[in-house]
């Protein structure tokens, strides 16, 4: 009888719909950098129409920056859709968002700087700088070089592909995962190939590289990012999640989990990349564009490092993608694109450079999974964006 009394009470109390957070509109107020242009850019109408078209497909919100190095117009920044669906706040080009794995290019740049300073070499074994705990039972971790990890040619199993990790993540969506907990999902898993014989994307590589940076520099890798990249490039919209996992002013992220263009708030669900160098970056397209320009123009790495970074290796599984060090080359209908993209739960971002056109395009959206991905991160979507920008 106790059960019969308690069960309905339990059901009634949990039948409540949890309302999304009430956030004051002022929380999202931000200033567009003075060197950026919006309405006063000659291509504003064309670029804004592109964003409006993407939003009209079912993307909650999108920010974009376009910079043509060949003209004097300066970077265009724009946005469409909402930063916050609950509070009906329009997205602004200066808002901040999660940009996930784009951080891997920052990890690579940091390591290339350390190579330039003679603190390590690309072709030495990464295990020299890794704890036994980190390499334990991870096949190839003791033999892969730093170059192999940067290039995804280590063969090391990608923990994110583990069904055990994926279900565990879904089971505890607000858990904040520590590096060793993530590495546990790569332990005991067969490597995909011997180091240096192929390439295959693996987040595990970049968790290990974060530890290499920390060992060499004696401080958290994200502090090294701040000192070597964020501050020198004046990336005022950029931070790392470990410092403040969910800043008050971060735009809300949404997931279309069931593929019906019905989204729910996932702002607090990205705890698996707060503390590792394979994700966790908070930024926006304007800052991503500044960073990518600094890389392409060798402002923060040497010519030699850039040559190492862009020594492309083809993948046996995808002939359109070539792997560099923390950077990819995608073969598109409009020429090569040097790029990196990144996901978090509820967020996606991409930054690319078109060398044949000398144009930088970066964009970030606050929705993913289900039907949304095809509008923002598929090759078709990327080519659509490039086409519209080049028109």
């Amino acid at each position, binding site marked *: 009888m106790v*059960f*019969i009394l308690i*069960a*309905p009470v*339990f*059901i*009634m109390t*949990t*039948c*409540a*719909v*949890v*309302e*999304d957070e*009430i956030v004051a509109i002022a929380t999202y107020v931000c200033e567009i950098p003075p060197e950026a242009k919006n309405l006063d850019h000659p291509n504003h109408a064309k670029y804004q129409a592109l964003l409006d078209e993407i*939003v*009209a497909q*079912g993307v*909650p919100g999108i920010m974009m920056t376009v910079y043509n190095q060949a003209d004097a117009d300066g970077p265009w920044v724009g946005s469409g*859709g*909402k930063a916050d*669906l*609950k509070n009906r706040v329009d997205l602004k080009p200066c808002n901040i968002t999660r940009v996930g794995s784009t951080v891997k290019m920052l990890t690579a740049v940091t390591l290339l700087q350390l190579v330039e300073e003679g603190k390590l070499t690309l072709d030495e074994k990464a295990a020299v700088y890794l704890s036994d705990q980190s390499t334990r039972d991870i096949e190839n971790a003791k033999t892969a070089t730093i170059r192999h990890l940067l290039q995804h040619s280590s063969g090391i199993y990608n923990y994110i592909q583990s*069904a*055990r990790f994926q*279900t*565990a993540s*879904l*089971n*505890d*969506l*607000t*858990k904040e995962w520590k590096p060793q907990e993530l590495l546990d999902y790569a332990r005991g898993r067969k490597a995909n190939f011997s180091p240096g014989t192929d390439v295959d994307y693996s987040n595990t590589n970049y968790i290990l590289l974060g530890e290499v940076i920390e060992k060499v520099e004696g401080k958290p890798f994200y502090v090294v990012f701040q000192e070597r990249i964020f501050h020198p490039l004046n990336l005022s919209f950029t931070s790392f999640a470990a410092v403040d996992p969910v800043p008050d002013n971060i735009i809300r992220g*949404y997931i279309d*989990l*069931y*593929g*019906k*263009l*019905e*989204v*729910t*708030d996932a702002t607090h*669900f990205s705890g698996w990349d707060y503390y590792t160098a394979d994700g966790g970056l908070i930024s926006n397209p304007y800052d991503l564009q500044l960073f990518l320009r600094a890389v392409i123009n060798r402002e923060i790495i040497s010519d030699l490092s850039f040559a190492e970074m862009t020594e492309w290796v083809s993948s046996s599984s995808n002939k359109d993608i070539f792997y560099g060090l923390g950077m990819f080359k995608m073969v598109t209908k409009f020429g090569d694109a040097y790029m990196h993209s990144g996901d978090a739960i509820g967020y996606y971002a991409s930054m690319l450079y078109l060398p044949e056109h000398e144009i930088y395009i970066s964009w970030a959206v606050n929705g993913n*999974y*289900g*039907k949304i*991905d095809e509008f923002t991160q598929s090759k078709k979507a990327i080519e659509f964006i490039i086409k519209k920008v080049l028109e």
Partner: protein
Amino acid sequence: MHMRNLFHFPCVFILAIAVFGTLSAQNPVEISVFNESTSVPFSGISLKPLHPGVQIGTEIPWHETNHYRTFLSINLRYIFHKNLYRAIAINLELGYDYKMDFGATLKTGIGVGYLHSFNVKEKYRFEAGSYSKKADIGNSRFTPLISFGLGYRFNPDNFNSTELFAKQQYWLELPYSPGFIPLMSHANTMVGAKFSTE
């Protein structure tokens, strides 16, 4: 902030109907509490984080010998995952109990079910070019399941005795996200009691 949504009270109503319906029948009544976890099959018992559930059901005997019996169980359950969904489900399970002399029962079962889940968070639907808040009508799922467990009968000689039991149940939720994630795997770690009506 929480808001009580009166439109979800039908699930309470359904449960109440089942409670009284099964109590009035001449078959044993089974009640259970459990923790649901999203996990790959056979990955062990998970009690954290807590995704609580309750279940009530009954058993219809099919065949019985001195050492085993088969039966059909009908269960109504409610599950609450605080970040994703709450769901009501009805399951039909073909059960097999093996009776041991000292009162223990080895229990297995295989079955199918229907689950209707609702978001626990506010939902925004894309319509006419923008997202706006909409009431959730839920998602329908097919849920095949298997279970393993151990029971203890208060009367060792009688299969229909009042019994305490613990079960580990594995079930699939499909379709989950068509074109993205075809199915999702779950486990329930369950304890309960069967009350004989004899």
